[in-house]
Each structure stands twice: as C-alpha cells, then as structure tokens.
C-alpha cells in the first residue's frame, strides 16, 4: 500500500502581515512547511515504519519555495516529491488548487497506486480548510477530516474525527482522504543526516501543460472566487490596566464586566 501527502509552503507562524496598498507585501515573509502538513507527513512516515505503507509521496503546488516545503517533508521521511510550478497558477483559489493537485496525482497513477491520501486539516495562510474535501469529492472517495487517530487494517481504516464537544469514530474503506490536526502525532525534528539525505531524494517537476491543463483553467482567470482586497484587521487598543490588592482590583473588574462588557 502507498500513501501520498499533499503539502503547502506557508508564512511562518511568527509572521507579521504587512500590506502594500490593498495587496499583501510578501517581501519579508519567511516560509515554512505548513504545521498541519507536518502531522500528515509524520503519520504517513509512521505508517511506513510500521510496515503498513511502502512508499510515501509528497505533492505540493506553488512557486519555487514549495521545493523547501517538499524537502522538509522528505527530511521527516517521505520518499520522493512532486512539485507543480507554473507562473499561470498565481492567484488560484481552492477549487483550482484541488483540480490541479488531482491532475498531478493522476499523473502519478492516482488511486490505482495510492490508497491513503493525507493532508493537513488547514493551511495557516488561506485558512479555507477546503482542499482535502474537494479532492475527495473530485476522486469520488470518502474523507475524514480533523483526525486525531488513524488505524489502518487491511483495506479498512478507523479514524477518529474531533468535532465540537466530542469525537466521531469513522470506519471507512480505502482509498480515503484523511486530514490531520494537532494531536494525531508529535512530528519529529529531522536529524541532520535525514536532512542531508532528503537533499538527494528525487523531486519530479510538472508545469500545467505537463498535466494537460489549459492556462485559462487556472490562476485568477480560472478561479471561481477572487480576492478583491486585503485590509488589516482593526488594531485592538490596550484598555485599562490595574494593579493593587486582590479585593480592590476584582471590584474594578466586576464593574467592567457589569458596565462595559454587560455580562453580569
């Protein structure tokens, strides 16, 4: 059995967003492998170490920096990468992204070759949480998103999905999409030898014409949504700050809760 992980390069969690006019200023952003994708890759590699999976493929779409995200995944222990890079892809929305990723996946043999499709639940930049479900729908297969546990048993899987106030235990037949969240595992810190080894692992590159996708089906032109404008959220102002005897500061807090927040 083989596993594929779809990963994304995203701004570091420490990033402070700046704008140039109403567009994002990307000049000083440092990029990392999306933290949620780390859980996905770690899970696939653990399944390989457990002898359940014999190959872990990593697919990423994005500009040249996506290569670094793929290398990070290879350092965790994935075997090889696929990088879809094409200037026409700039500005693609979630639906276009899902379609392009599916074409690359099919080029690699698709569901005939890969039965476990792993994603991070969300990419911390776009935050749409949508590509895993969209790809499952395009492929006509089930998906269990937001999982904290994944057990593979033959062609079946038990996956625990965290929902508000509880957990759903899903039983599914493979092939299936799984989207990982924090709690699924504790991703390893790749060792220096693993990082060195990752540099030698193969990465296949595709442009959209390699995948048979016309340029007007992707990017801003092919997308179903368009970003009209970026703005910064209203800056919160520091309010009142008090210090003193507990009884006295609590009294002031009670006054705030009653008169301003209006909750007691």
């Amino acid at each position, binding site marked *: 059995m083989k596993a594929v992980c779809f990963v994304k390069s995203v701004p570091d*969690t*420490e*990033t*402070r*967003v700046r704008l140039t006019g109403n567009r*994002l200023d990307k000049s000083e952003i440092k990029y990392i492998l999306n933290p949620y994708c780390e859980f996905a890759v770690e899970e696939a590699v653990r399944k390989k170490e457990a002898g359940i999976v014999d190959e872990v493929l990593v697919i990423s779409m994005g500009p040249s920096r996506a290569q670094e995200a793929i290398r990070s995944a290879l350092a965790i222990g994935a075997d090889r990468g696929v990088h879809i890079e094409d200037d026409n892809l700039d500005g693609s*929305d*979630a*639906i276009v992204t899902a379609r392009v990723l599916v074409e690359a996946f099919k080029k690699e043999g698709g569901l005939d070759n890969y039965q476990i499709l792993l994603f991070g639940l969300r990419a*911390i930049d*776009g*935050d*749409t*949480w*949508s*590509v895993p*479900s*969209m790809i499952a*729908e395009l492929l*006509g297969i*089930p*998906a269990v*998103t*937001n999982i904290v546990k994944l057990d593979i048993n033959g062609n079946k899987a*038990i996956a625990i999905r965290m929902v*508000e*106030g*509880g957990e*759903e*235990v*899903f*039983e*599914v*037949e493979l092939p299936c999409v799984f989207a990982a969240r*924090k709690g699924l595992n504790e991703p390893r810190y790749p060792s220096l030898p693993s990082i060195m080894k990752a540099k030698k692992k193969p990465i296949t590159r595709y442009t959209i014409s390699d995948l048979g996708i016309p340029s007007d089906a992707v990017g801003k032109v092919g997308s*179903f*949504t*368009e*970003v009209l404008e*970026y*703005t*910064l*959220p209203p800056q*919160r102002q*520091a*309010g009142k*700050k*008090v*210090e003193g005897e*507990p*009884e006295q*500061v*609590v009294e002031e*807090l*009670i006054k*705030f*809760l009653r008169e301003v*927040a209006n*909750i*007691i």
Partner: protein
Amino acid sequence: MIGGVVMVLVVAEAREGALRKPAKEALSEGRRMADKLGAKAVAVIIGEGVKTLLKEISGYGMDKIYVADSAFLKYYHPMAYARIISEVVAKESPKVVLMGGTQTGRDLMPRVAIRVGGGYAPDCTGYEINGDSIIAVRPAISGKVIVKVGFKKYPAFMVLRPNVFGVNEDIISVSSEVVEISFEPTEVERKQIVKEFSIKTAGRPELTEAEIVVSGGRGLKDAANFAMLEELADLLGAAVGASRAAVDAGWRPQSDQVGQTGKTVSPKLYMAIGISGAIQHLAGMSSSKYIVAINKDPDAPIFNVADFGIVGDLFKIVPVLIERLKKEKARS
C-alpha cells in the same frame, strides 16, 4: 432561481435532535440576506428524526424546507450529505448557499461547492451586496489580515464564523412548504460510516460557540489548578480554553487549545488568565468582543490587546473573583 425569484439556501445542522447554534445563526442570517436581496429563503435539514425540527426551522422565516430524514443519515456522512444538498441546489439554483462554520460545515460545503461548481468562501465574518454581486468578508492568515472575496461563479457558498451573526429570537410566522427527499445510500456511501459518537464536553458550552471563554496558560503552573478556572467558568456559564503551552504540558486536552494550531474563538468575553499572549495565541482570540487579562508580568503582550487588564498574582486574584461572583449570583 425559479421563475425569476432569487433564492438563499441555508443548510441547517442538528445534533442529538436539536438545531445547533451556528445553524440558528445561519438560518437567521439567511432570512436577513434574503430580505436584502428580495429573495426567498429555503432551508435543507438532514439527519435522523429531524422532521421534528420543521416547525422551529420554519420560525426563522423559511419559505420552503427540504428534509432528508433517514437512519443512515443519523451522523454526518460527507458523501451522502453532499449529494443530497447538491440535488437541492440543482433544483433551486440558489444565488447563495449558507451554512454555520462547524467542523461539519467546513467539511461539507467545499464538497458541495466543487461538485456543483460555485465559488467558496469559508469563515465569513460579514458580507456586502453590490448590485447583483455578493462579496464575502473573511479573515485569513489566522486573522492577521481581512480579505474581501468576490464570486465569479454562483451559487456563492459561504460558511459563517460562529458567534458573529446574531440569532433572531423572534419567531417569524410563515407557512413553509415542506419537501421530503427520499434517500437511499449508494454502494460507495455505504463504505463510510460513523460507528460511534462520543460526547466529551462535561456540560460546558462548546469553545467555538460560547459567549464567554475562560482560558488558562503557563501561569496556571499545573493541571490541578485548572479546577479554579473551571469553577470560574461555571459561574459565568463559560467554556474553558487553554494556551498551547498548557496543552503541550498535558494539563488540558487538545480540544481546548485556542490559537493558530487550535481553535479560533469569537466570544463576547475572553478571559486570558496566566497567558502571556504570543502572536499565535492572539491569532485565535483577537476577534473577541472584550478581552480581560490577568497576568503577573506587566509587560506581557496580552495587555496590548486587553480591554481590561489586571497585573498581579492569579492565584490571589481568581479565588477572590470566584467568591465575589458567587455573592453576585446569590443576590440575583
């Protein structure tokens, strides 16, 4: 659109026989949006025994309600739910499809959007109507930027952030047309089932839906000290949250984490207790209406966003606050 009438379709969601709060918000906003567009509001509800909810759904002013009631649909089923909603969309050609931003909403709507070919905007905190166009307003990059999203393909699929759109408490009297959808699972759908649903809330409101959240961080020093925050939360009818530090230390479950790798909350009041306010934590709670912080470090970044801050020892302040709230409660 049927006979030139514009439509807003709301996907309602129930659990354990009751409408979920984000579903009530979506139904309420669906009616308000329909009024702004001069449109009809149509709802769809899927589940087992959900026919009992028809009267309540109608009370949100729904002109028509589609209902798929089947034992197979008792729990969320991505493929089956997506197929049912897609059929309703094909029949009604709505301008907009709304759903509350639960885990189910965030999983289901992308499937339907790509299936029927409409633009998708999740986590909406607002929208604008510009002539014939809908523009969704949503945070991205963990709330560090606000994005206006235009739709080039309709229906516009919008998933609403919980706790942002108000629930209409007044019952709107309309006679809703009810359409029953007959449902049989396909062979592929039978290959995915929920075997079990376990509830793990301890009777407190869900973090993402709560009006008040009481969160603790590294400053709590120990798992046992969260008992104090739980007592405070119960006095306020609040949910208990935690910073990443408290979760990584094993003091609280993953499901309690607020922040970039946890949940995003927008309560009316967020109390950050013993939380310094790292940028990743702020990403998950800075859209709260009011923020109260208690921290012994006067330079903690949390004070930069707090509407009311107390510099001091939480172990001295929180017990006094609890006693004071008990008195307040006894009085009312």
